[in-house]
């Protein structure tokens, strides 16, 4: 926990410096007769964030908070959490190519099978029902189009029928 606390504090300090560097594109000072410049808010708030995370880092060397606690109390869970996060990222990456429907169906099937260990019948019902629901709720009713990618031509007859 102590190591994790320090790493996170360091990461936040790095992030603050990155923000401060970007904020300097616009004036960060007080402009005469007009109040703070466009970069002032992001710059000085990032500076405050830098200071606060630095205190957290320094503090960890003085008082040793969370001693004996572990960042991952249950180490078995790490592969599972990482797996879900990885699957989520892969799904989002696939959306522009295979479209939201195919990507989400694959996501649900893999998740339910690998992490949920469900039977194929339940998986089939859920993965088939979800896209149908999404299509009718988002596209037909709310007129919010979801990305289709390569699957676009398949939807043209559906548009003609339901719009």
């Amino acid at each position, binding site marked *: 926990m102590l190591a994790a606390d320090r790493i996170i504090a360091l990461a936040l300090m790095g992030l603050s410096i990155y923000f401060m560097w970007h904020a300097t*594109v616009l004036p960060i000072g007080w402009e005469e007769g007009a*109040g703070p410049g466009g970069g002032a808010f992001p710059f000085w708030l990032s500076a405050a964030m830098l200071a*606060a995370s630095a205190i957290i880092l320094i503090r960890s060397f003085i008082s040793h908070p969370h001693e004996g606690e572990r960042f991952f109390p249950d180490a078995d*869970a790490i592969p599972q*959490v990482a797996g879900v*996060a990885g699957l989520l990222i892969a799904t989002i990456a696939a959306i522009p190519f295979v479209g*939201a429907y195919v990507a989400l169906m694959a996501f649900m099937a893999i998740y*339910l099978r690998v992490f949920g260990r469900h039977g194929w019948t339940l998986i089939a019902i859920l993965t088939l029902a979800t896209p149908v629901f999404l299509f009718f709720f988002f596209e037909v009713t709310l007129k919010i189009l979801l990305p289709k990618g390569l699957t676009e031509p398949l939807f043209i007859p559906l548009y003609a029928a339901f719009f």
Partner: protein
Amino acid sequence: MEILSLLADGFATSLTPINIMVVVIGVTAGLFIGAMPGLGSVNGVAIVLPLTFIVPPSSAIILLAAIYYGAMYGGAISSILLGIPGASTAVATTFDGRPMAQQGKAGLALIAAAVASFVGGTISVILFTLFAVPLADLALAFGPAEEFALVLMAFTTFVGLGGDDVMKTIVMICLGLVLSTVGLDLISGQPRLIFGDLPGFYSGISFLVLAIGVYGVGEVLYTIETSRTAPSVTAAKLTMRALGEGIREMNKLWKTMSFGSFLGFFVGMLPAAGATPAALMSYGLAKTFSKKPETFGRGNIEGVAAPETANNAASTGSLLPMLTLGIPGSPTTALLLGGMVMWGLVPGPMLFIEEPDFVWGLISSLYTANVAAVVINIALIPLFVWALRMPFSVLCTVVLVLCIVGGYAPSQKLHDVWLIAGFGIAGYVLRKADYPLAPLVLAIVLGPLMEKSFRQALISSQGDMMTFVERPLSATFVGLSVLFFVLPVIKLVRQRKSKSPAPAE
């Protein structure tokens, strides 16, 4: 008495069988749209608006009011069941609604939200009926300085919300405020913090993206880890006894609810503020003045009732500047305003005089829609609670799919979905390291309002800071802010002295 007869005419139209049917359909549709993370009344209204040219205008107004109310009630549903605020107005509802659901009291929380919404909606519609016209002048008196002071006050009511760790709370507030400045700087018209010129950042980081990320994806990851040792969600049951208990509990909350309604109505009425600061302030104040503030954030029913009364009251209040001043306080009212323009109505001070049929038709529709919304909402609660009983891994998939689709829907940018995944993973790690997430989300909601009004006020005053305390309204709010800031600090110091455990997030 003239008002009453005008209102009676309005009711005569809104209570015909066909219009009652319209209300039921509208409210039900609104409930489901609002319950979907990422979607809110704005989506419902956008769909219905073009239809209003085809149906008779009186039915059109009723349909719009029904969808508007339905979606406002619906926002609380996803906050409580999934822990993802469906709209920024329902952020504060997650603070206690989610813990209640985890303790198996989802049904009770949903009832509390519905009843509170009804109370908030009713009180504010009555205020609207009686005082709409004179109050418009109060809204006019609000310039940038007053807006800043109000947002400052909303912020300070939340001082007590952070975790035990002051430094970590400060980091999260700053991070939220910095993220809220991403995009275009309104004052100079220049882009800032667009990270390598990514066009996706031009329009800034929306609150919804951050909230769906940290509360949706982050919560799922956190639950996956912790549920391996012990399941955290208790199966929810809804019995008649629980229902009766719920109503008794709500009976004790009259003070909180009526205070929340008045606060919500007045804050919602101010053009720039709207329902989100209203709900946050109501929650913050309920906690500050509670005898047991430490129970907030751990499933206190008062923490559901307070923001829900205020956000419904505020949503009604926000119709006031739209009708009387022609200023939309939210994207939804902006759409409604567009609808009015299309119907050939000119919003503004003359609307109440020139078009009384429209105005009172709308107000009576609000009464009807509010009653229909509470009845339909309570009737549907068993369905929502039942949905929670699906296996945990199924629920997780559904939540993640909704996070992706709901994150994409409002802006239709894949960029936002990437941000959701990023915020989700970051939120999970930060939460494990005891960084409180509520201040982060609050900061991104209030940040843009605060910076903008602060700088507008200073430009107007030629850079003179005294403008915030020289103007009477603004000075009042600044004074209250100081009070709200000092009060919890004194409490905290006392607690530290008596060595009692400090309240967690």
